[in-house]
């Protein structure tokens, strides 16, 4: 029982950045744009969030900086895929490459290349029931599950903006002829999505670690891409997918150090989260359709 509760706590914590990334990517893709810039956006959020906090001494400033960087990254994707209408794969991969390069470059120029790490005092966990239980989590974790997820769902399902967003992702011609500004809606979706991704990245530097190191995202953005598809572009299913991945991830870390599991190569256990998601996808059955305008730039004539 304590094992399971502790595992649940770890699951929520591990799922947190994935939830931000997955919801951010869900917004982009529901608007019709595959944002492969996610990995770089999370990375830049982690770095610039940290840098701003380190320079100003304020974690709030760090969070705001991360959001600003995310908005900018989303706007760049918008410029490339919406205004110019480039290939979305290249736009996203190029954005990721560029944002990682810029973050590392500025990191070296600002924080030097010497040994040791610059550090900020990270957000402490919020522990309403005292330490070491399921509810000893970072504020950003509570925000992710109790605020962001319901809000993101509500906005998509219930607001005009959400309706427009879904419409431009399904059938931009229809949205356009109904008077929806397709470009503006897609920009908004990409920028909101970018901000969420960046906050997901900043979770590492501002809450979990208090420092920035290279490769801090370590492919978690790519995982989010898979989780969004697995979640069939639904907010709640995406959150559930993130929880599944995080749960298996946390579980394998615990199994690896138990005596009973020594016969299994740890690499196999490390592979488990990926294999379980694939298996779950197979079991949960066929994919429903992609957003109708996925990967397609909208040109009026």
């Amino acid at each position: 029982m304590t094992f399971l509760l502790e595992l649940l706590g770890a699951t929520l914590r591990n799922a947190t950045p994935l939830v931000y990334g997955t919801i951010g990517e869900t917004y982009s893709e529901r608007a019709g744009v595959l944002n492969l810039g996610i990995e770089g956006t999370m990375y830049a959020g982690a770095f610039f969030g940290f840098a701003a906090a380190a320079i100003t001494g304020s974690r709030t400033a760090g969070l705001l900086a991360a959001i600003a960087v995310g908005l900018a990254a989303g706007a760049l994707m918008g410029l490339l895929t919406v205004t110019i209408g480039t290939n979305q794969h290249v736009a996203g991969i190029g954005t990721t490459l560029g944002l990682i390069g810029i973050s590392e470059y500025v990191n070296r120029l600002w924080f030097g290349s010497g040994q040791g790490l610059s550090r900020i005092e990270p957000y402490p966990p919020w522990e309403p029931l005292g330490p070491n239980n399921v509810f000893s989590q970072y504020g950003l974790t509570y925000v992710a599950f109790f605020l962001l997820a319901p809000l993101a769902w509500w906005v998509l399902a219930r607001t005009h903006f959400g309706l427009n967003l879904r419409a431009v992702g399904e059938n931009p011609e229809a949205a356009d002829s109904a008077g929806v500004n397709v470009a503006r809606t897609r920009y908004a979706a990409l920028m909101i999505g970018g901000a969420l991704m960046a906050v997901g990245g900043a979770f590492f530097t501002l809450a979990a670690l208090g420092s920035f190191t290279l490769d801090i995202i370590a492919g978690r953005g790519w995982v989010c891409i898979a989780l969004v598809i697995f979640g069939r572009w639904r907010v709640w299913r995406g959150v559930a997918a993130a929880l599944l991945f995080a749960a298996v991830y946390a579980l394998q870390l615990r199994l690896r150090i138990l005596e009973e599991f020594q016969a299994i190569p740890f690499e196999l256990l490390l592979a488990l989260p990926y294999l379980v998601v694939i298996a779950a996808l197979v079991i949960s059955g066929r994919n429903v359709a992609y957003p109708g305008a996925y990967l397609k730039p909208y040109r009026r004539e």
Partner: protein
Amino acid sequence: VDVTNTTEAAGDDTISVFGAYATQIEEPWDGVIHSALEAEQTAGRITYEFTDDIGYAGDMERVLTEVAQENQPDIIFGDAFGNEEAVRRVAAQFPEIAFVFGSGGGPADPNFSVFDNWIHEPAYLAGMLAGGLSESGVIGVVGGYPVPEVNRITNAFVAGAQEVNPEVEVKVTFLNSWFDPAAAKEAALAQIAEGADVLYAERFGVIEAAAENGLLAFGNMSDQKELGPESVVSSVVWDMAPTVKYVIDQVMAGSYTAQDLKDFSMMGKGGASLAEVNADVANGVPQELIDQVTAKEEAIRTGNFRVPINEAQPAGAIVPTE
């Protein structure tokens, strides 16, 4: 090597050194080499340039060749792990340049010297402290990859802990990544959940887990006290300064030969050390434990005790054998 032949060394007493690193220099291992060379440059003994992030995907051979042909330094420092064959091939083509590389293999005449972070000695001492400080009898180690060097220090750490507390249990987690502090922290938290109360942070991210839970930790590579002023008991420190100084001296004197420089990375020559024990950690460190460790340190230094070298991959759960 004819030092006076190189253009940069011609006018004055400095020689030129180039650093060629597979990882970015923010990575601690290459960072140690880089810092030592920067210090020598500051001291005015060398001119130093470097390039990093060369990677393991076939670029090392080209970059080293270009460095040798265009920069023509007197010495090239770097790490050969993962690029071993390529590095040795280039070294053989430029016998007039001193190649000094971190490597798991032996030296190669006339110009290829090897070093490694032989910090198993302070790791053993840290292990003793850990074994003595653990109340739960469970300690944890989080490392990057199970490569010989990491295995070596992990096994030494475990042996040290077992010397002080034969009943100690050790949890070992490898991340399969050199950089993933978030994963490292999660691995440490998983170890904590399984009872570990003292952690050895071979990689970044572990100390944060210990600090957050009011537990103890040991740093690696450099003194990492500032990452957890109340948690970090001590750190296993590697210092390349003795190696770098020795090589530069040799080259300057024109007496450089290929050799295994491992001794310069060990405690005897000051290349490895246990950082000063931090008395501010929670509950402090018992004086008798510190004395025990100091005595062992002295024994190592004087050659009365040799820390066993074991490069086998440690298991994830090491339990006392009856």
